[in-house]
């Protein structure tokens, strides 16, 4: 028999006291003071803004004009744009209680798949739109496989996407025969190296994806369901949500983002390569987590992810400007992740207290 203390409450409970304690618990839950500021969503974003500002200050002090110039800022943003698009997709998967380790490999696979098509005989007949469509379809298709494995195959997300990470990268190498493939399709490079209002198209793509992501997460049934199944899949199922189908859609969404990122990467580097997107999975997860999305699912923030991406991109840039090694950069990155997560634990609402 399950005789928990609460069970016994039924017969012996002292109503007045129960209510008093509930009220006390409530007061405790009401945030107050500085901690409250940090606890709230706005507070977290404020922390991210401060971190970014601090990094920029370090950049200006150490690099001066080389850091602060418009050109350099655009470089940072262009760098951030590709990983940013992947991170937006990652935000959805993680908010929905999953994880996708295959994003880097999917970027590589999408890139070589479409460049291979375009380097074959009929290359010159190809409109650049085919490159884009192929990349998106490959990304979404691989995401679909991930999603089916997780939702219907019962494979834990970590393992399913780990397997995809290995296979997709391998397939990318097979397709490209380990060669970088230069894009020769007329119009493609022209189309994507354009500036709009003096800002690179790549940056615009990131902005558009982020805005759509924000709307999708915060204003639609899709976003609400994502939060619900990430927070409590069983309760969501019993509430009548089609948890499996939704899970598949989440992985398709992140795959699609990988396809978009592949197109952006091809246009920036003018090549498709099986080595594209190395360690993107770690960069994306790191950006999502320091942004404030709960790794366990149930809470997600697009704005936080955007800041997370910008912080890491700025960090890289500051290190490059000061001629510091990639290794030092990686070390600092790890440090930032840990500090950010510890701060979050410190200031986030303690469940159940």
């Amino acid at each position: 028999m399950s005789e928990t203390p609460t069970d016994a409450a039924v017969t012996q409970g002292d109503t007045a006291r129960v209510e008093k304690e509930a009220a006390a618990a409530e007061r405790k839950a009401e945030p107050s003071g500085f901690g409250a500021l940090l606890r709230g969503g706005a507070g977290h974003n404020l922390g991210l803004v401060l971190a970014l500002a601090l990094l920029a200050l370090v950049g200006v002090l150490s690099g001066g004009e080389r850091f602060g110039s418009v050109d350099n800022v655009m470089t940072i943003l262009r760098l951030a744009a590709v990983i940013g698009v992947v991170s937006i997709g990652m935000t959805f998967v993680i908010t929905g209680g999953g994880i996708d380790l295959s994003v880097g490999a999917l970027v590589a696979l999408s890139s070589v798949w479409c460049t291979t098509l375009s380097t074959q005989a009929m290359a010159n007949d190809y409109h650049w739109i085919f490159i884009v469509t192929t990349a998106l379809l490959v990304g979404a298709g691989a995401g679909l496989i991930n999603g089916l494995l997780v939702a219907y195959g019962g494979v834990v997300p970590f393992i399913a996407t780990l397997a995809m990470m290995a296979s997709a990268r391998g397939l990318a190498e097979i397709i490209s025969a380990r060669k970088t493939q230069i894009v020769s399709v007329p119009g493609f490079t022209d189309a994507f190296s354009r500036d709009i209002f003096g800002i690179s198209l790549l940056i615009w793509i990131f902005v558009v994806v982020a805005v759509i992501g924000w709307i999708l997460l915060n204003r639609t049934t899709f976003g609400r369901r994502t939060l619900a199944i990430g927070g409590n899949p069983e309760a969501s199922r019993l509430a009548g949500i089609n948890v499996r189908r939704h899970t598949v859609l989440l992985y398709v969404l992140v795959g699609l983002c990988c396809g978009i990122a592949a197109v952006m990467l091809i246009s920036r580097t003018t090549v498709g390569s099986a080595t594209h997107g190395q360690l993107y999975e770690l960069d994306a997860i790191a950006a999502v987590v320091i942004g404030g999305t709960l790794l366990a699912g149930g809470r997600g923030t697009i704005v936080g992810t955007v800041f997370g991406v910008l912080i890491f991109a700025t960090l890289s840039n500051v290190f490059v400007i000061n001629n510091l090694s990639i290794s030092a950069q990686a070390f600092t990155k790890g440090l930032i992740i840990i500090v950010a997560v510890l701060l979050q634990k410190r200031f986030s609402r303690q469940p159940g207290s």
Partner: protein
Amino acid sequence: MTETPQPSNDGVAREPGGGGGALLEMTGIVKRFPGVLALGGVDLDVRAGEVHCLLGQNGAGKSTLIKVLSAAYQPDEGEILWEGEPVRLTTPVAAMKRGISTIYQELDLVPGLTVTENIFLGHELATAGFSRRSEATQRVRTLLARLGHREVDPNRLVGDLSPAGQQIVSMARALSHDTRLLILDEPSAVLDQEEVDNLFRVVRGLTAEGVAIIYISHRLEEIRQIGDRITVLKDGRTVATGLPVEDTPTAELIRLMTGRSIEYVFPERPTTPPSRGTAPVLETSGLCGDRFRDIDLRVHAGEIVGLAGLVGSGRSEILETIYGARRSSAGTVSIDGRRLRRGSVRAAVAAGVGLAPEERKSQGLLLDQAVYRNVTVSSMSRFAKAGFLDSGAERRAAEELTRSLDVRPAGVDRPVRNLSGGNQQKVVLARWLLRDCKVLLLDEPTRGVDVGARTEIYNLVRRLADEGVAVVVVSSEVEEVLGLADRVLVISEGSVVHEGPATEIDESKVLDLVMEGEVA
């Protein structure tokens, strides 16, 4: 009933000769939890070599008492004497060192370790960190022989054993600690008849060696077979202790267990019974599943049907199968004459069925999300245009409902986690009210709900029925089922053993049915 009669030692036939004074004596044990008095004065004395049975309904305090004894909880008041000496059992290890071992219903074994490794878990036989395997195996063989189960292989993985085999391993582990008092919490629940006979043989062997047993079971026939004396708990208090098993009639035991110190107020039933002539809203026929078989249920609009039975009798499984959360193995579920797709929650929800699940927090609610989101989660499409949610409309709808259900504190933007149990339950009900559901399935609707809020929930359920909802209520508390429902089905071991109007059956009759398992 006179308080705490103390029959003389000689009066009990199975009492071994050597049993002099009490091995364990507990007096006036009080245990409080925040806002709850779990034990309000429990007396218990257990003699060496006897089987002392502990009886009581759900919530009577049996489990809490066991946890006090095994030092999982510290009592707030009261005295524990061990062989006449006052003792304080501060940690589970301290209790174990005195020789008190508990075998819980959920066996706490590690499935991936062998029998021997489980038995010596935490006190491994080892020299400088290297385990002395052959010696351990040898000792396990001795223990198993003492239990009369030589056939259990010490080197098998515990996960590969049957529930009965695992229970033997638990007992062997207890004995490896030189146990003098063994507490068995519903040991027969997972066993078939032959295994129960085996268990009794082991128990008799142990008592012959002078080990005292505290035996908890709902099955009176078992208590008659194995017990020496009985202590009855009710509402956290001892109502009778030391009753000799052989001289106490069943009726007397049931009388002691029933009746309450606090009477709940149930809403009045409608004077005219819900139209039985009309077609039922919910109908199951020959429904079979995990732990039940051949359930024929008919629930009409405006009717509350209660399912009474012990935990594990299949009640919750029936509800979950109707709801599609479990797959039925045979039979059908129909709503308004239309058959539901098997094992599909979404089909059930679409047909107008709602469930307030037993585990409200893990199955019912999105704890960290706002009240309004918990209310609208099953009706999102109503508030969406082309996938875009109108959260203003959501809030307004949730506000209206929570106000009418008197959810306190008001405010639909606070996380559900911050609400009390009763108010959380109202949020779950609001979710289904929003869908205008036709059938409402309530599994333990007042678990974790305090006394004041219970009456509110009862009134609410009756109001829903009056508005034409067909309600099915499952509860471990017989009084609740009888007080709330129009019609009652008593479930025992997965089958209906009685069906009839709630007014024509009383608590002791229901207990009789579920404990004896006989068809009336």
